[in-house]
C-alpha cells in the first residue's frame, strides 16, 4: 500500500528533522514493513510552470514554433517547440537545461542541455505529458503532437513544477502482507495514528473533516438486509445537484500518490475516503437505481452482473450483492460496483453507501469470482463497523467542497444488527515485563496504549484496558495482543539480548536424527557416494517406467506440473532419473539419497518411512560393487549380524535373478539388486546400475551391538590356499559351508574367496574359485600334522560336492 506523507501530515506533525527515509524506517521498526520510499518531486527537478507569452513560426522549419515563455525570471526565454496545440497564454510544463525527460515517453531518461534547433536557440523544452510521467494526450498513431496544457493549474509562471502539480510528496510503500492483521492500517488516518504513537506527537481528531451542511430533507433512503451475518452495518445518504467533472489537482495528486487513477470527482471522493479512513464506499446514480431502497442479499444461482470493469460475472449463491427495490443486482457487495448504476457524466443525484461486510464471506466470494479489489482487500481483514457513518460524513464534506451546489437531501440512515460493544482486557504489568524480558515503566505502558486510542484505567500492577472499535474486530482480544502493542511502540531495539538462565536439562535423545548424519558420513566420506536431494513426488509416467502401480500412491490434488503428481513410494524412480540426466557427463557414478517415502496403507495418514538408497553406475555387472558397498556400510554403521537371503519382496524395478534381501534379526530391512534392464532402457541408461536400499528407521531400531573385546591370538596361525574347479552355477556359499563342515577340530578361523576365474584354461561350463583359510589353535601352535589332516578333510568335503581340487598331486 502506498502512503502519502503529505496526507499523513494532515493528521500529525512529522518532525522536519526526520527524512522520509527515516520516517519509513520508524514505521518498519514499530508497525509494518516499508519496502520503499519514493520522492515524487525527484522526477520534476529543474522543471517549472511556464506561461507562453508569444508564439512565432520557426524561420527554418514548418512544424516548429518559437515560443517566448515566462518562467518567472526577469526575462522570458525562447523555446523551440513542435506542439500543435500550443497557444499564447497557455500554462505549460517547461523542462529547463539540467532536467531529465523521457523523449516521446520512450527509452531512458535524457538530460537536457541548452541547444540550438535549426539555428534557433532553445532554452530547454515544453513537455508533452508522457515525457514527464503525466497522462499522455498523444494516443498511439495520432498525427498531431500535443503538449500538456496545464492552464487549469492555479499557480504562477515560474512555480517549480512539482509544486504546481502537487507532486511535492513522498510515498512510503508498505508491504501489504505485514498489514494482514491490521484492518485499521488500510487508510492514511490509521498510519497517522501509528506515527503519533511512535513520535509522541498528538493525533488530530477528525472534526472539520466530518462537517457538512444538511439541506432540505426530501428523501429518506432505506436498506433491507436479508442476511444479517453478511452485513452488520449499512449506511446511506442521498445527494442532489451534483455536477460530475474532474476532481481538483490536489485530490488527483493524492490519489495518484496512493496509487489510484483519478476518474471523476464523485468516484475520486469515494476512493479518497477509502484511502483516508480505510472504509470502502460506493456511489450509485440515484436515477439509474430508481429507488431509494436497497436490498442486501446473497445472489441467486446463475445470477449475472456486469461490473465497473465491464466484465460479466456469473454469481454463486453465497456471493453478497446489493440490489435495487426491483431486486436487480447493482453490485457485488464489498468487491465491485455494477457498471449500469455507476457514476457517469450525466449523473446529478447520488445514493452514497458505506457498509460493513462479513470478512469471510467477502474473502470467499472474491476467491470464487477471481476478483480482488481495493475494497475486498480491506473487507477481508475485518473492518470496524463504526466506520460506515464516518465515511459517509467525510464523503459529504468532500462533495460540498468540490461541488458547492450539491445538496444533501437526506439524513444519514444506518441499518444493521451491529451494536457497539466494549471489549475490556485485564493487563498485568508484571506479566508484560516477564514476556518482553525488560523493565518498562507503567507510565510508558499507559502512554503507548493511550496513544493508540486504548482506554486505560486502574492503578498498581493490574490495569484494565478498553480496546478501541478499530482494533476490536479480531486483531486485539488478549493480554498478549497488548504486550505486542507495548513492545513494538516502546521499541524492539531496546530489548536486551539475554541467554536464558535455565537448569541443565539433557535433550531427549533422537537416535535417528543423529544417525542420519552418521550414515551420510559413511556413505560420502568412507564409501565415496555423492548425495542427491530429490523431490518427494514424481509423475505417473515415471512410476510406470519403474513398473510400479498407481495403487498405494497418494496423489496431489492441486499439483504444479504433470511430472509432480504422485507422492513417491520409493526413492528409486527419481534417483534413476537423475542418473539418466548425469550419464552423459559421468560414465561411472556412486550416488545416494536419504529421504522419505509415503505409502497409502489404508489409514488417513500415509505411512512415512525413511530410506537410504544408494546406486552404483558402471559399465558391466555392478551388483558386487553395490553389495560390497552395502556390506561396508552395514559394518561401519555397526548393524547387528546382517544376513543375506534371496529377496522376499519382489521389486518391479529389480532384476528378478539379481536381488538379494538383507535381514536383521530375521526381518528383511532392505535389498541389494541390479536394476532391471527393461527399466534401465526406459530411463535411457546404457550403463549397468545396481542399488542397495535400506529401511533407515528399521536400521536404527536394530541398534548397534556393544563391541566385546577379544584378545588377539598369542600363537601364530597358518594360511591355506585352495583352488577348485566347479560347475558354473555352484555358489560360493555352498563351498564355504562344505569347508566349514569339514572342520572337526574347530581350527578354521576364516574362509575368504580371493579369486574367481573362468575362461581360458578352464573347461566350458566351469569356473575356478580360490579360497584362503586361516587355521589356528586357540592354545598352542598348530602342528604340521594337524594342518595336513585339516587339508585332507577340506579336499574330501569339496570333492564330495563335485569340486575338483586344482594343483593337488595326481
Amino acid at each position: 500500500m502506498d502512503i502519502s506523507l503529505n496526507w499523513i501530515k494532515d493528521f500529525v506533525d512529522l518532525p522536519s528533522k526526520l527524512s522520509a527515509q527515516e520516517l519509513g524506517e520508524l514505521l518498519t521498526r514499530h508497525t509494518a514493513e516499508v519496502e520503499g520510499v519514493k520522492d515524487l518531486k525527484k522526477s520534476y527537478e529543474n522543471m517549472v510552470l511556464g506561461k507562453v507569452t508569444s508564439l512565432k513560426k520557426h524561420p527554418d522549419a514548418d512544424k516548429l514554433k518559437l515560443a517566448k515563455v515566462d518562467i518567472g525570471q526577469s526575462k522570458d526565454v525562447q523555446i523551440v517547440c513542435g506542439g500543435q496545440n500550443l497557444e499564447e497564454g497557455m500554462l505549460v510544463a517547461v523542462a529547463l537545461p539540467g532536467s531529465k525527460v523521457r523523449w516521446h515517453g520512450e527509452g531512458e531518461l535524457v538530460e537536457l542541455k541548452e541547444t540550438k534547433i535549426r539555428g534557433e536557440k532553445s532554452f530547454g523544452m515544453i513537455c508533452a505529458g508522457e515525457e514527464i510521467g503525466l497522462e499522455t494526450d498523444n494516443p498511439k498513431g495520432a498525427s498531431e503532437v500535443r503538449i500538456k496544457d496545464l492552464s487549469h493549474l492555479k499557480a504562477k509562471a515560474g512555480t517549480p513544477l512539482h509544486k504546481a502539480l502537487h507532486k511535492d510528496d513522498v510515498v512510503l510503500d508498505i508491504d501489504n502482507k505485514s498489514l494482514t492483521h491490521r484492518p485499521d492500517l488500510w487508510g492514511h488516518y490509521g498510519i497517522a495514528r501509528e506515527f503519533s504513537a511512535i513520535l509522541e506527537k498528538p493525533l488530530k481528531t477528525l472534526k472539520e473533516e466530518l462537517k457538512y451542511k444538511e439541506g432540505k430533507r426530501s428523501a429518506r433512503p432505506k436498506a433491507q438486509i436479508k442476511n444479517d451475518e453478511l452485513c452488520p452495518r449499512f449506511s446511506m445518504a442521498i445527494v442532489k445537484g451534483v455536477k460530475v467533472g474532474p476532481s481538483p489537482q490536489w485530490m488527483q495528486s493524492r490519489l495518484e500518490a496512493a496509487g489510484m487513477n483519478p476518474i471523476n470527482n464523485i468516484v475520486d471522493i469515494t476512493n479518497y475516503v477509502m484511502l483516508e479512513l480505510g472504509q470502502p464506499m460506493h456511489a450509485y446514480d440515484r436515477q439509474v437505481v430508481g429507488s431509494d431502497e436497497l436490498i442486501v442479499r446473497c445472489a441467486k444461482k446463475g445470477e449475472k452482473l456486469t461490473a465497473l470493469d465491464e466484465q460479466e460475472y456469473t454469481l454463486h449463491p453465497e456471493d453478497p450483492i446489493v440490489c435495487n427495490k426491483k431486486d436487480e443486482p447493482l453490485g457485488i457487495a464489498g468487491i465491485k460496483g455494477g457498471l449500469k448504476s455507476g457514476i457517469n457524466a450525466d449523473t446529478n443525484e447520488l445514493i452514497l453507501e458505506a457498509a460493513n461486510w462479513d470478512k469471510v464471506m467477502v474473502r470467499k466470494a472474491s476467491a470464487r469470482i477471481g476478483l480482488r479489489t481495493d475494497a475486498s482487500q480491506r473487507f477481508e481483514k475485518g473492518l470496524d463497523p463504526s466506520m460506515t457513518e464516518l465515511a459517509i460524513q467525510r464523503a459529504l464534506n468532500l462533495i460540498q467542497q468540490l461541488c458547492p451546489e450539491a445538496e444533501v437531501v437526506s439524513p444519514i440512515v444506518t441499518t444493521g444488527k451491529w451494536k457497539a460493544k466494549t471489549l475490556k482486557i485485564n493487563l498485568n504489568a508484571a506479566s508484560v515485563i516477564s514476556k518482553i524480558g525488560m523493565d518498562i515503566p507503567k507510565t510508558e505502558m499507559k502512554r503507548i496504549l493511550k496513544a493508540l486510542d486504548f482506554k486505560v484505567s486502574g492503578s498498581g500492577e493490574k490495569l484494565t484496558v478498553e480496546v478501541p472499535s478499530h482494533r476490536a474486530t479480531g486483531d486485539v482480544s488478549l493480554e498478549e495482543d497488548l504486550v505486542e502493542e507495548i513492545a513494538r511502540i516502546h521499541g524492539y531495539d531496546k530489548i536486551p539480548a539475554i541467554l536464558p538462565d535455565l537448569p541443565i536439562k539433557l535433550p531427549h535423545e533422537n537416535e535417528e536424527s543423529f544417525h542420519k548424519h552418521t550414515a551420510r558420513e559413511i556413505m560420502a566420506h568412507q564409501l565415496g557416494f555423492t548425495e542427491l536431494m530429490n523431490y518427494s513426488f514424481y509423475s505417473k509416467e515415471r512410476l510406470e517406467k519403474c513398473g510400479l502401480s498407481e495403487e498405494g500412491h497418494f496423489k496431489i490434488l492441486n499439483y504444479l506440473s504433470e511430472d509432480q503428481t504422485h507422492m513417491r513410494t520409493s526413492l528409486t524412480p527419481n534417483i534413476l532419473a537423475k542418473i539418466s540426466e548425469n550419464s552423459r557427463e559421468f560414465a561411472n557414478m556412486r550416488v545416494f539419497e536419504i529421504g522419505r517415502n509415503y505409502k497409502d496403507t489404508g489409514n488417513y495418514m500415509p505411512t512415512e518411512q525413511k530410506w537410504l538408497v544408494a546406486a552404483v553406475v558402471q559399465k558391466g555387472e555392478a551388483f558386487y560393487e553395490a553389495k560390497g558397498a552395502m556390506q561396508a556400510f552395514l559394518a561401519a554403521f555397526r548393524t547387528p549380524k546382517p544376513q543375506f537371503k534371496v529377496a522376499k519382496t519382489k521389486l518391479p524395478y529389480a532384476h528378478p535373478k539379481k536381488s538379494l534381501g538383507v535381514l536383521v534379526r530375521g526381518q528383511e530391512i532392505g535389498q541389494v539388486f541390479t536394476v532391471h534392464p527393461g527399466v534401465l532402457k526406459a530411463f535411457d541408461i546404457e550403463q549397468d546400475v545396481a542399488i542397495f536400499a535400506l529401511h533407515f528407521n528399521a536400521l536404527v531400531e536394530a541398534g548397534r551391538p556393544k563391541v566385546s573385546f577379544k584378545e588377539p591370538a598369542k600363537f601364530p596361525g597358518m594360511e591355506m590356499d585352495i583352488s577348485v574347479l566347479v560347475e558354473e552355477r555352484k555358489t560360493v556359499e555352498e563351498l564355504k559351508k562344505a569347508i566349514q563342515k569339514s572342520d572337526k577340530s574347530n581350527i578354521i578361523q576364516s574362509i575368504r574367496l580371493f579369486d574367481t576365474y573362468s575362461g581360458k584354461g578352464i573347461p566350458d561350463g566351469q569356473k575356478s574359485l580360490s579360497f584362503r583359510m586361516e587355521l589356528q589353535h586357540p592354545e598352542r601352535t598348530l602342528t604340521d600334522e594337524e594342518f595336513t589332516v585339516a587339508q585332507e578333510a577340506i579336499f574330501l568335503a569339496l570333492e564330495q560336492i563335485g569340486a575338483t581340487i586344482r594343483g593337488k598331486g595326481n
Partner: protein
Amino acid sequence: MRAHFSMKKELQQLEKDALASIKGSASYEELKDAEREFLGKKGALTGLLKGLKDKSIEEKKSFGKAANEVKKRLEGTFEARNKQIEREQIDAAIENDWLDLTAPGTQQATGNIHPLYQVQKEVERIFQEMGFTVVDGPEVESEYYNFEGLNIPAHHPARDMQDTFFIDKPSHKEEGRLVLRTHTSPNQVRAMRKYGAPLRIVVPGRVFRNEALDASHEHTFDQVEGFMIDTHISIAHLKGVMQEFLSRLFHKEMKVRFRPGYFPFVEPGIELDMSCVFCSGKGCKVCKKTGWIEFMGCGMIHPKVLESGGVDPKKYQGWAFGFGLTRLVMMLYGINDIRYLTSGDLRINKQF
C-alpha cells in the same frame, strides 16, 4: 716391568691404528679386512696376547683386562661403522631414483554430503549444545496440525500467504484434509503433546508450497523450527539465543534486530533481521546497503497454540521461530539459484 710397559704402549698403538683403519674403510670389504687384521684369529690383538705367555699371573690379569676393553671398544666401533657404510650405500643407490611427482595419486573413492544436510547438521549441533532436542514430524500433515492448531482457522487471510498442496483424499472429520505441510510449525503442537512443558526443541525438515518455480522460489524447501517454553521465557531470551546461534554458525559476532511481523501462531509476532554476514553491517549488495538481512519470523507462542498443545498458557510462556534452511545454505555458499540444490547435477553436488 719395562716389557709390560711397552706392551701397554703397543696395545694403545694397536687401538689407534685400528680406529684409523675403521675410519678409513670405505666399503664392507675394507672394513672386514681391517676387522680381520686387528681382531681376527690371526690378528694383531691375538698376536699381542701371545706375548703374555711368559708373564706373571698378575701381569697377565692386568694386561688381559686392558686388552679385552680395547677389543670391546673396537668391536663397537666396527659395528657402528658397518651400519654407517650400509646407509651410505643405500643413499648412493637412491641418488639416481626418480618419480614423476606431478602424476596423480591412486584414485580413491570420494563422495559428498549435500550442502543442505551439512548445514543442517551444524545447526542441530549448535542448538543441541544449548540443550535443545531435535525432533521431526510427518511431511504429509493434517489441516488441523498445519493450520487450526496453530491459530489459523479456515478462511483466515494467512492461508493465502502459504499456498498449500492438498492430497486427493477424503477429508477427516476432526483433522480436516491432508496437506503437504507448509511449514515445520505443526511440530510445535505435536512436541508439546508428546513432551509437555518445559521444552526446548528444534525441528529441521522439508516443507512444501504450491508456488511456481524460479530462481528464488521452490515448491520444496527446508525449514528449521525452534521453540523454548518455560515459566519465564521472554523476547529478550529469543534475542539472546538467536544472537548466540548465529554467532556460532557464522564464526563471528552477529547482531540481530527485531521488527513487528505477523504470524497467527505467535503474539507478539516478530521479524528477525541479522547483521549482514558479508559486510558486517557496513552495507553491501547482498543486504541492499541496509546492513541487515531478513532472516526469519518468530515471536511469543500464541496462547491458543499452547492450549492446542495441552500446555497451560497461564503457567507457561515461550517463543518459537522458523527460518529457511535452504535460504541459509544459499547464502552460506553464494548459490544464486535455488533450483541448483535439487537439480541432482553431479557437477554441482560434487563441489561440496
